[in-house]
């Protein structure tokens, strides 16, 4: 149905990034998110000063795959640590000290553990910002002065113009019906 809208309409909307709806309380935002999700929107987002319980479900966010990536990072650290200790102390520069074996798990576990944790943590850190597309110092939402309160005490919802269902007039009506205190057009 929205696909029936010709590309001419899209060209007119090109400069528009989306519609910003502002809420005063988290309840209103969660309720609105459920409606947007049920309406079938795909390219939209909610912006809040803190994570709200129940939002993942209200927005239908898929479980992130970061934990698997972090496990992979940790296993890499483990392998590097074991190989490094074995090669350095038993192959490349073997020397006997106190009759200890050149390579034996008990004495090599602490460093292995530490490098596993280190690589997992680095993967978690860089994976998080990488998947979030950050650092990204410019974003269309930053153009709105009202949006500055998104990191303090206000709750926002953005319906993006790149969504298949986005049609400026009809989406504006829909946005106004979501129960926010203010609706604003965001430029790209």
């Amino acid at each position: 149905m929205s696909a029936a809208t010709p590309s001419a309409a899209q060209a007119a909307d090109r400069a528009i990034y989306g519609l910003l709806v502002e809420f005063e309380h988290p309840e209103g935002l969660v309720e609105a998110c459920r409606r947007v999700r049920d309406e079938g929107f795909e390219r939209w987002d909610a912006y809040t000063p803190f994570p709200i319980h129940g939002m993942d479900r209200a927005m239908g966010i898929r479980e992130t795959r970061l934990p698997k990536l972090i496990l992979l990072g940790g296993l890499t650290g483990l392998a590097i640590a074991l190989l490094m200790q074995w090669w350095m102390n038993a192959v490349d520069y073997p020397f006997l000290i106190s009759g200890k074996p050149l390579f034996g798990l008990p004495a090599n576990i602490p460093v292995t553990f530490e490098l596993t944790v280190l690589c997992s943590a680095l993967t978690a850190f860089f994976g998080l910002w990488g998947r979030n597309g950050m650092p990204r110092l410019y974003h269309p939402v930053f153009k709105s002065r009202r949006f500055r309160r998104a990191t303090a005490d206000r709750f926002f919802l953005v319906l993006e113009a790149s969504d298949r269902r986005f049609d400026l007039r009809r989406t504006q009506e829909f946005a106004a019906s979501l129960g926010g205190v203010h609706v604003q057009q965001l430029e790209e």
Partner: protein
Amino acid sequence: MSTPMQTMVVDPLDNTAEDPTRPTPLVLGGHDFTSLTDKVCGIAETPRPPRAWYIAFAVTSSLTVMMFAMIAYLIFKGIGVWGLNNPVGWGWAIINFVFWVGIGHAGTLISAILFLLRQKWRTSINRFAEAMTIFAVICAGIFPAIHVGRIWVVYWLFPVPNYQAMWPNFRSPLLWDVFAVGTYATVSLLFWYTGMVPDLATLRDRATKKSRAILYGIFALGWRGSHRHWHRYEKVYLILAGLATPLVLSVHSVVSFDFAVSQIPGWHTTIFPPYFVAGAIFSGFAMVGTLLVPARKWFGLGELITLHHLENMNKIILATGSMVGFAYATEFFIAWYGGNPNEAFAFVNRAFGPYAWAYWIMVSCNVIAPQFFWFKKIRTNTLVMWILYIFVNIGMWFERFVITVTSLSRDFLPSSWDYYKPTAVDVLTFLGSFGLFFTLVLLFIRYLPIVAMAEVKTVMPAAHVHGEARPVGDYHGDIDGGGTTRASKEVAP
């Protein structure tokens, strides 16, 4: 029957009365999201901090400069400027290292372990405690680096190719230490910074000056509170907490291996790892308290860092202090029960030998002082608790002194015994490390959000969306794998 009357007249900022039928309010003073943001950001936004800040900064930065001067002198002259002698080859450098790295542990306990245990009261104090961790680890890192003597080849500690074609010995606890402390410093920093990004974004969005907006903006990485970002953020925060928890236990265990893996009487014991970890948490909480009690008073944060928070910390100090006392007793018992004459001598020598004065300072400060926290009146009196924190700080430094020096100064052969005394350089370097620590704390208070605003907001009643089962908001608690998958299936196109 007079209890209800009493509850009516108590101080509105006293939330230490336990009522099991309802959760203790963690934020007092009728704050909403707006006023909370104003309050916390206000500290970092005042154009001029109070005069006391400048005075404190002048003192601490002078001490820092003195420390670097002492280090320069040490590098120029050599390790001989310290009081080390033949049996006591490990002096204040290792004592200070263990002291500082132990202090850091409370920050990780508050930020990671209490998080995994869902102790919501941690939200008001975790930022401060994590900052303290990082500053303490910085101070700790200085001592092993300078104690190597030839500091220009300090890179031999790391597995970096060098001109002698040698690799470090991975079977030595001293090398485990390099990896443990290095990992600990890195992970603590990542955890602290990750937690701070949303609050840096708050400071960016409130900035009135361009320069502040740009600086905070860069460090906020463009955070805009997107819920798709929060979703990953919460997951990663949980995983980082899960990683930091075994890490913090491993770090002080490895530090204790520096002693326990050797054969010196008094060091060669299996009790060291748990005993060191308990002591680390004990000393760390005392240091958090030492900083928090005045900070909360000067910056009017009593409504966020409430008496309930301080009381909880005091209970942890009581518990870990008792563990430390128990460990001292166990050491003595095993020294007798183990039947090793050298071991038995080492402990009798600790308590009644030439360093008995240090031993009894340690016992009074670490075993007796925390026992006062059995009394609620003392647990909730900020002045008395602060004095007790100071005792614990002193006691825990002396614990490391007693362990290191008594065992080394009188080992197996009486002919090699000697009494160890520090020099002025030892003392001034250690004093200077306090200067560095407090300088960093003062800069942190001046420029960064000292309370984790985003986290505190979630434990306020207004954050709670009606219809949800939990009575209070739940930061990072929205990790409900099954639920979200089901929801996403519902809307899958």
